[in-house]
């Protein structure tokens, strides 16, 4: 197979060998940027992150949420589709029997270990009930402890609004503390979900 | 101006520099924590376990550079008196200096040709 070689023309010659004209050419650019930014930050492309945020697309895959039916109960029917499809095995569901016989199952436990999640969105696509979505717009999650990344069913409910808390980060005490490490990280020890 | 009054301030400056660096060192030694362990004491090696020591073998180019430096630095010292007195010494001094620089340039050309200045 013939390889395609792109020839880059090198500028050589006396002018380049002396460096000075090229240096001044470069200086013209950097000095221009310096003064434009000195007098009013005209070219600045970075933002002061926690105070300013970039607009995100409607389709941005952020933190998950579990949607609800009109009567307020979770839409999820604990079909294990998402748990099965999840490539990083970070969803852990335990099905429970609902007292209302018209509803077959409901998730008794629904944990997502957001540290393992790769935000691929496959769980959203797999769900037959549109019960799980990733449209919360939570772009970055920064917490101080590992356990905080373990989102339980109640934290994933769609009315859970982090902004209601005084800091946008979840404090540790916002979250239920699992009793043992086994229950804390159900699938994170490399054990595939059953 | 006597020698002492001209150079004493320089000594003071040097002492001041030592004082500054000494303060820095002492402040760091006494105010910083001292939590030593084996890993922290090991020299940085990009996270790898260190194998062997760095030894004392240098590339020969460094010796070459040092030699060429010695030659040129000493020659420059001989040129300073001429540069200051260039008007008084006139064309005679100029010719002498040029012969001197010419010998230097010959040396440089020889080094260059022999590859003492190559670093590839």
């Amino acid at each position, binding site marked *: 197979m013939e390889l395609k070689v792109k020839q880059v023309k090198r500028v050589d010659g006396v002018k380049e060998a002396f460096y000075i004209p090229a240096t001044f050419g470069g200086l013209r650019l950097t000095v221009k940027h310096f003064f434009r930014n000195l007098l009013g930050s005209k070219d600045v492309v970075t933002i002061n992150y926690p105070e300013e945020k970039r607009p995100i697309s409607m389709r941005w895959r952020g933190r998950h949420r579990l949607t609800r039916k009109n009567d307020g109960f979770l839409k999820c029917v604990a079909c294990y589709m998402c748990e099965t499809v999840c490539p990083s095995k970070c969803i852990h569901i335990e099905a429970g029997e609902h007292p209302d016989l018209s509803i077959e199952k409901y998730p008794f436990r629904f944990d997502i270990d957001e540290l393992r999640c790769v935000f691929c969105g496959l769980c959203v696509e797999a769900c037959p009930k549109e019960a799980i979505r990733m449209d919360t717009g939570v772009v970055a999650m920064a917490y101080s402890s590992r356990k905080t990344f373990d989102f339980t069913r109640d934290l994933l409910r769609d009315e859970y609004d982090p902004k209601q808390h005084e800091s946008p980060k979840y404090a540790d005490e916002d979250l239920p503390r699992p009793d043992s490490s086994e229950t804390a990280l159900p699938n994170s020890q490399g054990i595939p979900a059953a | 101006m006597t020698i002492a*009054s001209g150079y004493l301030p320089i000594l003071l*400056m*040097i002492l*001041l520099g*030592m004082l500054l660096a000494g303060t820095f*060192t002492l402040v760091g030694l006494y105010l*910083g924590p001292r939590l030593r362990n084996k890993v922290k004491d090991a*020299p940085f090696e990009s996270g790898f376990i260190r194998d062997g020591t760095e030894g004392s073998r240098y590339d020969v180019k460094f010796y070459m550079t040092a030699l060429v430096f010695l030659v040129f630095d000493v020659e420059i010292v001989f040129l300073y008196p001429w540069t200051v007195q260039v008007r008084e010494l006139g064309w005679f001094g100029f010719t002498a200096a040029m012969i001197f620089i010419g010998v230097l*340039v010959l040396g440089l050309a020889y080094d260059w040709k022999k590859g003492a*200045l190559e670093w590839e």
Partner: protein
Amino acid sequence: MEIIIEILSIPLVQSILKIVFIILLFAMPLGTVLTLMERKWSAMIQDRVGPNRANIGNYTGHGLLHLAADGLKSIFKEDTIPKGANGFLYLIAPFFGMIAGVATFAIIPIAGPIGDFTFQVTDIEPGLLFIFAITSLSVYGAVLAGTSSNSKFALLGGTRASAQMISYEVFMGLALMGIFMVYGSTRVSEIVDGQNEYWFGNLIPMWGVFTQPLGFILFFTALIAETKRAPFDAPEGESEIVAGYFLEYSGMRWSAFMLSEYIAVAAVAVLTTTLFFGGYHVPWLHLWESAPQWLVTLLQVMKFSIVTIFFCWMQIQLRWTLPKFRFDQTMALGWKKLLPLSLANTALTAVVILAFM
């Protein structure tokens, strides 16, 4: 009152006062502020916001408090010494850079003399030869730090630093020969006064940059390489040998290296100002003969500071303008371009001086 004047007229007391003034009120603050300004200016050049987080309450001072935060942080950091390091050499290595940086300011006049009183710590006869001597001292800092750390990267950085610094010392000396010839002295006060002459009546001041344009470029290049700053920062090469010779240093000793680097930046700017931009002389000020002495001195200090700050800024600007030189390119640039050019500059200057004398 009289006893105070008596004490003040003792030369030693005067020079101590001058040292305090020049170092503690000029060089050190400039070096310290430069540590922040380098980051702030770099941010502006690269279209970033730059450091602005350190705060007391709501006051951030546009990042000014980072100076205090950084200082406090490094004071309370642990001072590690790697195992196998040569304790004494490791201890004294930061001293050399600091001494070299500080002592450079000894012969720099920051304003014209008032009567017998000079704004210069000492005006020794060898003048700039002293600068060459003292800057070569900073080679020891790099070499000792590199060899005593018992670390491979530090050793690489130290050897590179030694080769680069001794090479560029040669070109620094050669580049200044033109200046010595034009002003006929190595003494700083005479060079500065020589730059107060004018060409064509009162049209162009005889600044070093006009009498020695090539010499200026060579000298500035050599000085930047001597301080091991970008684009000649192969001895520190963050991307290959992490930090070079001061890799193993931490806490306040690391700060000592950093501060001496910034003092060296200030020293480069000060030397360039003094030798090539008329020093403290305000151009065309002599035309205003009735100017009061205090105003003249004030203007001189201001002019000196402005040009100095301009050259500090210029070094940071150059850092973000030029791509880094590989180490062999650094050496080739020195020995194959700067050396022949500076020899030619010397010869040319001599010919011009002798021909038009």
